[in-house]
């Protein structure tokens, strides 16, 4: 694992510059999902990506994770061109990605075990983490015995326990109820403020995006999607998610972004249908 210890302060944790992604279709044609997208995530910054469904949010995260190589443009991690997997990132996938043959506890512990932590210690810490995501009593369940929201939370613990420098999260709180979402959001914020990770957070909940982030980035409707809006959230830190939503600045921001987003979605909708 190549650890870059000497990262300059101003260097971006993730810098995607003018990336293009084209998927090959079954009929031989290609589909250009993302075109000329540029996105910079400074070290210690919390950035949310919001955009219409199918616009390319997961695709951008996959590029940042090194799972997908852009057809054009560059992806840099802490100033170094990304070549292969991004070893400094933790990635919570949008789809179910738990190991079906491991219990919840083992699923959480594996991230540590892989890094060389002894099994006993890994398990002890995994237990603690399961408690944090509200699943203390579910440690010995296999994934197929958990509800959708429970699986997502196990995944969350699996990623967070490794304490990566960069967090890539694709709709991590999707299948959670509003209340649990807040608890998890606060958990994430606590963790983030403790050692200022760089977080790239995909969500469909604009309120959540604003409440959590330093910046909210809006993507245009696909195909050939790119980043079309970039809003700085100047709300005071530390924040409590429930409380921050009551501030007037929050509402102004929400209204502005919402307007842009709405137009974009409508556009995407007609585009997809018409084509």
């Amino acid at each position: 694992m190549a650890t870059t210890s000497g990262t300059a302060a101003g260097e971006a944790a993730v810098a995607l510059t003018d990336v293009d992604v084209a998927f090959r279709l079954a009929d031989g044609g290609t589909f250009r999902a993302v075109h000329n997208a540029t996105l910079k995530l400074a070290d210690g910054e919390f950035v949310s990506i919001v955009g219409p469904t199918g616009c390319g949010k997961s695709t951008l995260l996959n590029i940042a994770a090194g799972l997908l190589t852009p057809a054009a443009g560059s992806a840099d991690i802490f100033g170094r061109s990304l070549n292969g997997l991004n070893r400094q990132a933790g990635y919570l996938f949008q789809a179910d990605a738990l190991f079906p043959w491991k219990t919840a506890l083992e699923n959480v512990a594996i991230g540590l075990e892989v890094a060389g932590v002894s099994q006993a210690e890994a398990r002890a810490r995994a237990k603690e983490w399961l408690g944090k995501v509200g699943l203390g009593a579910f440690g010995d369940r296999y994934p197929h015995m958990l509800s959708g929201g429970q699986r997502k939370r196990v995944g969350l613990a699996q990623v967070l326990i490794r304490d990566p420098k960069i967090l890539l999260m694709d709709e991590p709180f999707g299948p959670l109820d509003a209340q649990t979402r807040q608890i998890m959001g606060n958990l994430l914020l606590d963790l983030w403020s403790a050692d200022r990770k760089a977080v790239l957070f995909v969500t469909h909940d604009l309120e959540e995006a604003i409440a959590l982030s330093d910046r909210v980035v809006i993507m245009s409707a696909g195909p050939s999607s790119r980043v079309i809006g970039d809003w700085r959230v100047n709300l005071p830190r530390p924040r409590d998610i429930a409380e921050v939503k009551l501030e007037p600045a929050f509402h102004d921001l929400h209204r502005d972004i919402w307007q842009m987003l709405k137009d974009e979605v409508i556009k995407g909708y007609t585009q997809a249908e018409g084509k």
Partner: protein
Amino acid sequence: MSRVTLLALQVLVAVVFVALWYALTTWPVFGIVLLPPFFFSNPVDVVQQIVKWFATGVIWKHLWVTLLESSLAFVIGSIGGVLVGFWFARQPRTAAVFDPYVKMANALPRVVLAPIFTLWLGLGIWSKVALGVTLVFFIVFFNVYQGIKEVSPTVLANARMLGMNERQLMRHVYWPSALSWMFSSLHTSVGFAVVGAVVGEYLGAAAGLGYLIQQAEGVFDVAGVFAGMFVLAAFVIVIDTLVTVVEKRLLVWRPNVGDAKP
């Protein structure tokens, strides 16, 4: 279906089978005996032969030899198949280069190889083991290879993002994911391991069930041949049951078959 019903039904099948066999070898239908006893013996003789073998104890030595050979063939063949399967799955270039040769090797009639095995390995158990291995290996290999390629891409991507190196991927992802394929192939290979051993003995040996069968065949003692085959079959069931027990233990994590819960 309860265990008792199941067992009863299984016994019923056996009884019907034996009864049919007895009837068709004994009573003519429209003037011809459908299963001439010269080729099919009859259940009574076969049972007598089996009882005699066990009563006199001669069978034990032969059973032991065959058991040893099949077990060795099974273990060596499976381990080889698993290792090479993993290796190929992880080295797609090597796999692509050697792919046609593996398929060629799989198509060689093993019976023809017997003299070479005898030359290299002698007349003892090892030449029979080798024959069994050449059968077991390919079945396990093809299944493991496929099983590894079937790993869910999302789970694999997750594992890689969690920082697993090749060895850890093997252990935590490919291996468990390939297990159900492997066990499916093991059920076939148990049978083939025994077939390999018996055919090896049949082609040249001093002991073993294949030797017994061949001896019986040489003197046209069909009852002996069938008795040998039944002992063999019973014996395979025992090994296969062991495989199933191991399988059940290793695959606890899967949803039950009847479990329709999505």
